[in-house]
């Protein structure tokens, strides 16, 4: 088994996630990009775990990450929903009332 191909895929996913999280203006899409990053990390964990065959904890960690990501996206969507209610748009640039 070759490790590289998984790592490259993970890298690609992560970069896509970072790009999306920084550039997209829509809150929902930003959340989705964050999920991409989390899954890139998951992929790494699983890949390493499979590569070193005696080690199972990577896969266990991946399960934890999935569960926590689900909770996180629940909170995130609630925030986006409130944003939408208050500003009648999910555009993150308009939520800048904390500027100094």
């Amino acid at each position: 088994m070759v490790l590289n191909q998984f790592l490259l895929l993970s890298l690609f996913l992560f970069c896509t996630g970072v790009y999306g999280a920084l550039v997209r203006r829509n809150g929902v899409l930003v959340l989705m990009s964050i999920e991409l990053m989390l899954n890139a990390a998951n992929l790494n964990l699983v890949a390493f775990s499979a590569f070193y065959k005696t080690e199972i904890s990577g896969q266990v960690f991946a399960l934890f990450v999935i569960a926590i990501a689900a909770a996180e996206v629940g909170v995130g969507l609630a925030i986006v929903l409130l944003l939408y209610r208050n500003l009648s748009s999910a555009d993150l640039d308009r939520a800048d009332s904390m500027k100094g």
Partner: protein
Amino acid sequence: MAHWAFLIPLVPAATYFVILLFGKRFGERCSYIGIGALGASWVMAAINAYQWIDRREIVRESVEWAQWGSGSIRVGTHVDGLATMMLVVVTSVSLLVHIYSLEYLRGDRRYTHYYAALSLFSASMLMLVIADNTLALLTSWELVGLCSFMLISHWWEDKDNSNAGLKAFITNRVGDVGLIVGIIILYFVAGKTFDIDTINSAALSGTIRHGTLLIAACCLLAAVCSKSGQVPLHIWLPDAMAGPTPVSALIHAATMVVAGVYMVARLYGVFFAGFSIGDGGMNLLALVGGVTMVIGASMAFVQNDIKRVLAYSTISQLGYMVAALGVGAWTGGVFHLFTHAFFKACLFLGAGSLSHACHHTFDMREMGGLRKKMPTTFLTFTIGTLALAGVPPLAGFWSKDEILNGARANDFPIIMVLGFVAAIMTAAYMGRALYLIFFGEYRGHAHPHESPKVMMVPVTILAGLAVVVGLLNAPFADYRFGQWVKFEVEVENLYGAEGAVAEGEAAAAAEGEHAAEGAAAAAEGEHAAEGEAGAEGEAAAEAEGEHAAEGEHVIVHSIAEIKELAPGETVLFEPEEHKFNIGVAGSSVAIGLVGLLIATWIYLLRKAPKNLLLVNPFRALHTLLVQKYYLDKLAVDGIAKGTAGPVADGSYWVNQKIIDGAVNGVGVTTKKYLAPFAYEQLDQFVVDGLYNGLGETTKGLGGAFRKLQNGRIQRYGLWLFFAVAILALVVALLA
């Protein structure tokens, strides 16, 4: 009971969460939960005290709290006489305050919140008194501070009240830094331990260099000053009167302010050795206490607010306690803490009753002649006043006398004189308050009436206690209190052990490793001796458990006696208790009566010249006292406001006031030669340039950073990723 002592603070602490979570559902009934919890704690404390009197054997329970490779921290309870006494005092006063608040706070808009905070306040103080290590002490110390902040600014809608809370909190922070530093120093010098007994025994046994111990004791003293209202950090205490009156009673009698005194009593080994208390003459601890008792008492004279009179009186009495500990009269100081708790709580709750009757005013100018209208309040307040003034056989007499006698016997003449001065002042200002409130004609506009029973019963109980508790340590009662509550710690003589280097040197390295590595540090070739002394220090700490089983050691009273022992011999250290002295007692009673007579002459008979305050030096003295010796002004205007402004403002101020002033001053005197140069070149160009430059730089930096705070979450994210990327690059390059 002592094995289950942790339950005593746990019950009210649990109540805090119950009231906080279900407060809305229970409404006003939540007060009964608080009272029930404190009642349970009181019962447990009483059982514990009862058992203590029979047993008198220190009970320690602890569990592992944190653990790492080479060591661990244990946390637990330590129930000895001092803790037992404090448990009884705190639970009694707190329970009575809880009951009293039922009526006093009825219909308050944050009733549930009040009872929740009161529970936590009591719980933290109870935890403080049974803590067996300095970390737990620090934690509950901070909790007490937090709760006092919540309660002092209970009515925070009024800006004055929230400011008072802030002042208390921030002033206390100053001292807390001292406490933290002190604890850290002690941790390292006592052989990496937070355990209070071990620290005490290490401090007395000579394993710690005296200079180090002095620094640690000074740091702890800063904490005592802020918590127990000693000069110059007492400024928060009178302002803390902004809180509800029952809270003031609790803060001033049983919790909060006595925490500092308690800490000195608990870590007495450190203070005794650090300040060389046994040597007599004068030391910093006694000096702070002595100055505080006179300054506090003098300021009480000019207050018109009854609660403020009592607040300054508390400061003065805390001064007595600290001075007592400073002169080595450990039992006297702790006994005064004990008696003071009851009569001061009685006085405060009495003041609350007065305000309840007189339309929520505390101003004595709007009272007067209340003797007939409020007979119970009058009686209890008089008992409290006489107890405070030290009239026998009331509580204050016995404890105050013991302190003065201790100062005499331990050769602290200045403290004894200050004590007598403060005693005459105490009697006089309390007499003034008594006459202004209860005698003469009524001067207010309300219709005073006696307060309801639920308020007067706690006050009456406290007044009754104020009469009897003093007898506990009277000569004809066999000095029972002194037998029940005493400071004792096992000490091993390690002064000049083995190589007999200078006593401190041998001790500097209490940690074994340090001594092993010592070769580098101790270039004088003394490290061999150091190593052995250090090793012995550790062995001593370990062996303590065994020694305790053997019991019966010789009792010593001073460090000199410890030094005379054979090296390595273990003894029991106890500060000496001085028995009743008829001379001191007689003079203190006489002086108290003189104070009361002066007050009678001025305020009851009105014989003093009317315009006394208009002539110097009385007028100057009066102004000085009204201005509180300008200490508040210094702290608030000088220190707080000075640091609150931004750097640019500060620079501007320095430029305008100091530099300009100085330069202009020089310019005026040497006008002909230097003025043009000084003004145009030096001042305008160099100095202004420097300070304007500094200001502009600050402003510019602020402006630059301000742009970063654009409120756009994704821009923040970009910076974050950028920083992480750089970090990753650095790690990759280094690895």
